[in-house]
């Protein structure tokens, strides 16, 4: 037993020749986010809080394709999606089609905790976000005016206690759009990099030049109490059709956690959905009795065609693994016994 954490910033055709000025900020971001997660675990935070915290940080970093820095749809807009799952209770929340929410992962957690549903999307999800902002602001105003009374109301208090690293804020959509992503969309449109229609021949997909689907972020963690959690967030695919939903928000595809393990997957969304990648890691452990490493390797190597997927996973006993069958995956991990790794390609520095 012991805590463990892993995070990713996307898997795909990351050119080994990537110039240092593009590589270094991403490595630095991975290190920074890993440190935040490790500190949270050391201060006994629940795994669910840790994965939310780390993914918020990754969303706020414009170098990854989630939150600020999300890639653009064919209409030049952002449509973000995210998903979070708690292993022991299997409670989960998911959101899609967000255009104004600064931290989609936190909205997915609110869907899990404050609605009878699991998954809200597009206008309905945005309306829910606005409601939650309103409730939060009212609670805040209420504390200032009536603080002694306020302390008697545990619900509102818990909201405030979480203000530091949680909560939902909305902002104009232009906040998310970076010049780099406007350029990416332009290139994608010029190259007519609309993906080929027949998706059953995954092998024949062109090696996406420059990583059109790169940069989805995710975090999995197990805390000292053995609680597992997984979280994934993304802007999706460059030049995607408006309304496209990928694997990230789908429980069992991009994100899954139960009492055995927590998994966040990244890569070609359509392949990950079809192979229910995240659930399959857990299913292989459960039904075939394989270890976390064996189960993850089995899914990545035997089930999903090459060039399509990477994943990070932790087990209840504190193991961690980060396999991928793409050229590279931005990734980092650490465990309580002092093991730590940050890497992009196969060779580990």
């Amino acid at each position, binding site marked *: 037993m012991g805590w463990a954490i892993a995070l990713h910033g996307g898997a795909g055709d990351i050119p080994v020749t990537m110039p240092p000025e593009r590589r270094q900020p991403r490595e630095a971001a991975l290190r920074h986010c890993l440190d935040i997660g490790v500190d949270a675990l050391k201060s006994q935070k629940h795994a669910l809080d840790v994965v939310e915290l780390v993914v918020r940080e990754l969303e706020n970093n414009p170098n990854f394709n989630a939150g600020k820095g999300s890639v653009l749809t064919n209409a030049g807009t952002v449509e973000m999606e995210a998903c979070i799952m708690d292993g022991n209770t299997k409670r989960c929340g998911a959101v899609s089609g967000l255009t104004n929410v600064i931290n989609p992962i936190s909205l997915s957690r609110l869907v899990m*905790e404050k609605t*009878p*549903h699991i998954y*809200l999307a597009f206008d*309905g999800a945005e309306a829910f976000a606005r409601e939650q902002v309103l409730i939060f602001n009212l609670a805040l105003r209420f504390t200032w005016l009536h603080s002694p009374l306020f302390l008697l109301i545990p619900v509102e208090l818990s909201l405030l206690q979480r203000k530091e690293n949680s909560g939902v804020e909305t902002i104009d959509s232009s906040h998310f759009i970076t010049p780099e992503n406007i350029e990416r969309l332009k290139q994608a449109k010029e190259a007519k990099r609309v993906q080929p*229609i027949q998706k059953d021949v995954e092998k024949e997909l062109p090696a996406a030049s420059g990583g059109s689907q790169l940069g989805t972020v995710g975090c999995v963690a197990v805390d000292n109490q053995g609680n597992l959690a997984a979280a994934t967030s993304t802007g999706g695919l460059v030049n995607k059709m408006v*309304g496209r939903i990928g694997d990230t928000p789908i429980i*069992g595809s991009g994100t899954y956690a139960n009492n055995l393990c927590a998994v966040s997957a990244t890569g070609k969304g*359509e392949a990950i959905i*079809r192979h229910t990648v995240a659930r399959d890691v857990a299913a292989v452990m459960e039904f075939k009795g394989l270890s976390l490493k064996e189960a993850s390797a089995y899914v990545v190597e035997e089930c999903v065609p090459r060039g399509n997927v990477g994943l990070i996973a932790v087990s209840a006993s504190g193991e961690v693994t980060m396999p991928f069958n793409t050229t590279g995956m931005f990734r980092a991990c650490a465990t309580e016994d002092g093991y730590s790794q940050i890497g992009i390609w196969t060779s580990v520095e």
Partner: protein
Amino acid sequence: MGKWAIAVHGGAGVDPNLPVQRQEAAKQLLTRCLNLGISALRSNCPAIDVVELVVRELETDPLFNSGRGSALTENGTVEMEASIMDGPKRRCGAVSGLTTVKNPISLARLVMEKSPHSYLAFSGAEEFARQQGVELVDNEYFITEENLGMLKLAKEANSILFDYRIPNGGFETCSAGAAATDSPLQMNGLPISLYAPETVGCVVVDQEGRCAAATSTGGLMNKRTGRIGDSPLIGAGTYASNLCGVSCTGEGEAIIRATLARDVAAVMEYKGLCLQEAVDFVIKERLDEGQAGLIAVSKNGEVACGFNANGMFRGCATEDGFMEVGIWP
């Protein structure tokens, strides 16, 4: 040559006081759809075509909660969702948030075959529908008098139930389902008489041993705008592989958490269980307190159904001449 098999469902969780007349109408519709599927299978239609054909028929008939006759959102509108999956290559297509597409299942199939994606939702899905030239109708077409009445009652009932169920902060609270189902006569927090369980689905294995699955729904009565349930989610409401095809129905949130459809296939694949054992296992072990049901076929031409709700509208048939249509256990 293998043997074909087919199963259809019209939802799990049935009002025990459902008028006999309506029970008969449901059975007749299920029988008609089975026969439609059977004749397609006899004329060697591939499984993927048969599941689409049958689900279109179920969507077009207003009796069940899909297509015409869909349950209404809190705003009194219809937001439909559907998914389809072809076992041999695990190709799949899904749609959510449709308001004008007459047959959501056919749009799901077009997403699978004519778009680079697997899943389109809301305005983007509607835009794709216009590009593809599928039949569009006004949202009014889907709304029945009966459902308008149900929504009114659901709002009255829910004004109490909903407040009771809203978790009040912190992660020690429970989410949907668990607290809502302590009375056996509620599903998804609604009294069973108002709950509109009647998601439709069809699973087929054809003579070539190809499996396919399709599911379509209007979702939950009085749902929030934007709510996505299990039906369009591959692995939750719908799944097909080279081993089997599965379509689920019931309390969506419980089905999503359980990745119910994928789990039937996963225990077959990774544990070596046969179809009926796999179905029994997931219904018993995977639903926690949720209520749901599912239909499944295997590549060997077996058919199975299972549910832990009080009833499920269902029908199945195999090439050997077995045919059954039922509602209660």
